[in-house]
């Protein structure tokens, strides 16, 4: 070759370096490909391999090959190879590229694979602007499975699954993938090329190289659609098949650049480096401080089952969480379980809380020691389940006459009215919590206040909640004083 020809323009009949010299992963015929004579895959692979060589990226390339005639790229490419499921190459390539942003990831797909079963994956990878390169080999037929209709099969074509010819009524219209994808904002470069003659092949060569370059620059998604002959399934000789590409395929699928944003698109920003391991606990917001309070001087075993119930929005779950947080700080085992199941649908909200000095077995509280009922339906629903000797706190000025039990202590206080007087009815749940702390020595008040400071982030609300907690305790003290002779309503 004359010395004036630059290295990257070496003759195209030479074998590319990133193709194996012999195909050691094949069982037989290790010197030849599995593609039929005249098949466009052979040419396309050669063009792709040459582009990889020219760009000097073979060490960085990962070829992703799904099902169909593209599945065997690992026989030929001396690069990283990942074989994936039918249609899923853009998703798998996304997984690889996100994990290894420096890799040059190339999804190599046929028309059935990309345009039918994998249509969602290609659409979304393109739309995300995933910085991968897709080589889309469109021969308008399912080759490997023996000649069934592809989404790209022209109208009227007979295939094994359109034995009377493809009709729009039965089979829909040929899918123009490149035009569809080019309409999205994500792709940076999409071009349709063909293998119908040498001129077209040279254009295909340039397009593939440009697609890879745009990935190397980190610009975004690129796709080259290659109109490709399939002489065996088309039942044509190679020359005739090439003519078919030139004359029929290109008239149905016009060649050319469908979108090119390589000049205007900025490279995607690099992902920040991983955090040092020592930083992880802080990033994961894992507490480093021991709890402020231990269960100092507490005697005896604790095993308290609490059910909190009310309307959604009354702060039922938060009330339960505050109890559990405080219990944990106090050195108890705790569990908090939101109600789950059919009753979620009726607009009520409730949770199960357990505080115990022993490991907690079942976190479900079907027979509570304490019921906090923030509305009447909740009182009626759960009152019967309360254990004898248990405690019931009810949001109201009086316990309804027909919802009373003589074997449990029942207290009625208008929690939300009390909270409203303090500044906001929203703190009614904390008033109820204060009342509980007064009715039963569950956890010391200062422990609850400390837990509250951790859970309630806003200083304004925290201030209100502190007052609400105190008002709840006070209100129950007063109620107890009034009913000192008869704490259990008969």
């Amino acid at each position: 070759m004359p010395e004036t020809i630059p290295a990257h323009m070496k003759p195209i009949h030479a074998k590319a370096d990133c193709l194996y010299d012999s195909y050691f992963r094949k069982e037989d015929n290790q010197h030849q490909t599995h593609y039929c004579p005249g098949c466009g895959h052979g040419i396309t692979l050669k063009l792709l391999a040459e582009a990889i060589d020219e760009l000097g990226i073979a060490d960085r390339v990962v070829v992703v090959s799904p099902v169909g005639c593209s599945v065997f790229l690992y026989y030929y490419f001396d690069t990283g190879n990942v074989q994936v499921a039918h249609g899923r190459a853009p998703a798998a390539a996304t997984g690889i590229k996100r994990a290894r942003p420096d890799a040059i990831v190339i999804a190599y797909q046929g028309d059935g694979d990309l345009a039918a079963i994998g249509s969602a994956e290609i659409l979304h990878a393109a739309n995300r602007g995933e910085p991968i390169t897709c080589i889309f080999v469109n021969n308008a037929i399912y080759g490997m499975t023996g000649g069934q209709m592809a989404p790209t099969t022209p109208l009227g074509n007979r295939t094994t699954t359109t034995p009377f010819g493809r009709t729009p009524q039965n089979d829909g219209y040929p899918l123009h993938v490149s035009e569809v994808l080019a309409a999205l904002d994500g792709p940076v470069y999409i071009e349709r090329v063909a293998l119908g003659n040498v001129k077209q092949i040279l254009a295909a060569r340039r397009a593939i190289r440009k697609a890879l370059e745009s990935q190397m620059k980190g610009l975004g998604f690129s796709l080259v659609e290659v109109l490709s002959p399939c002489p065996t399934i088309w039942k044509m000789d190679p020359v005739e098949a090439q003519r078919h590409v030139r004359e029929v395929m290109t008239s149905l699928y016009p060649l050319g650049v469908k979108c090119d944003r390589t000049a205007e698109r900025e490279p995607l920003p690099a992902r920040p480096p991983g955090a040092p391991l020592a930083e992880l606990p802080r990033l994961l917001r894992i507490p480093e401080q021991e709890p402020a309070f231990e269960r100092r001087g507490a005697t005896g075993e604790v095993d308290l089952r609490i059910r909190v119930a009310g309307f959604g929005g009354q702060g039922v779950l938060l009330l339960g969480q505050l109890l559990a947080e405080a219990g944990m700080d106090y050195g108890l085992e705790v569990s908090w379980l939101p109600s789950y199941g059919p009753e979620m649908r009726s607009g009520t909200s409730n949770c199960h809380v357990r505080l115990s000095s022993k490991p907690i077995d079942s976190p479900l509280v079907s027979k509570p020691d304490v019921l906090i009922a923030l509305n009447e339906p909740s009182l009626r629903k759960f009152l019967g389940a309360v254990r004898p000797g248990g405690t019931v706190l009810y949001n109201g000025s009086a316990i309804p006459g027909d919802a009373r039990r003589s074997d449990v202590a029942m207290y009625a206080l208008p929690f939300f009215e009390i909270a409203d007087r303090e500044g906001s009815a929203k703190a009614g749940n904390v008033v109820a919590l204060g009342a509980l702390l007064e009715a039963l020595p569950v956890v010391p008040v200062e422990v609850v206040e400390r837990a509250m400071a951790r859970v309630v982030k806003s200083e304004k609300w925290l201030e209100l909640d502190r007052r609400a907690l105190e008002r709840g305790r006070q209100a129950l003290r007063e109620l107890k004083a009034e009913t000192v002779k008869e704490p259990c309503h008969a």
Partner: protein
Amino acid sequence: MPRQLIKGNEALVKGAILGGCRAFYGYPITPANELTEAAAFYLPQAGGVFLQAESEVAAINMVYGAASAGVRVMTASSGPGISLMSEGISYLAGAELPCVIVNVMRGGPGLGNIAPEQSDYFQAVKGGGHGNYRCLVLAPATAQEMCDLARLAFELADRYRNPVMILTDGYTGQMMEPVDFHSTPAAEPKVPDWAVCGTPETRRNLITSIYLQPDDLERHVRKLAAKYRLAEEHETRWENYHTEDADLIFVGYGIVSRILKSVVGMLRERGVRAGLLRPITLYPFPTAEIRRLVGQAAVFFTVEMSTGQMIEDVRLAVEGERPVEFYGRCGGNVPSAEEIFDHVMRWIDGRASQAVQEVLSHA
């Protein structure tokens, strides 16, 4: 060390990240959303990748890609989503790719409902996808275990180059309990030498599940089977709860095992020596431990939130030598301790054989 009151689902994500997880691909589904949301919040801060995929099908194939590239990767879903992922899980197992898949079970079949069930046991333990493969399956019962087993799941996935599934339910996921994260110091994820990373060192590596020659595929499948035997020998995990002297042994996992612990206490108060065998690994199943207990127990009682799936493995282990009774609720109903207790007492007084009645009343 300080503990954090935290939902099981969130504890799992934190445990996973501490265990080296650096990528999460998922698709929203109730009741697994806290997992996906926590991953979206924490992973990017930890220098990892989070991506909401266009479908479960895409999500599991993104997992496949990331696992191919040697990253510790996780996804989470619930029954209907896991069904969609099953093709990908088969590919992951076939290509021997490690990953962690969380199934926060909901009621099925079909759309079912969003309440907790345990009816994906067969799907998780027996396959779900096509071909001769197994997932290792872990069944946490506490928020602490959601954290700890997430970490273990990644270790097992790497050790066996196999998908590991964490099979849990809406209750265990939504429940808040104190979790000590300090017992699991952060692990530095290592890049395995078989991965395809787009580097000169990994250039010759190949990830694939295709073996066209029958002899090649048979060799591959037998290699997988040998790997699963190895896991059966070394990775079976369970918890015994008052089984030392038990005549009646419950078998239950996940949230049900917690309820059964209460039932064990209630039965013992009534003089019935009850105990619980809680499988922590559902595959490999603690068959040998059940075999050991067959010599001691008069009856096994399997309780599940399904119409009976794990009971088949219990029966296989018991080999017909003892009665294996069943109590199950489904549709999102969680059996209460009182309800199970009543059922068992009625069974003892009614349908239990005279021999079993005698043993159980011996105490």
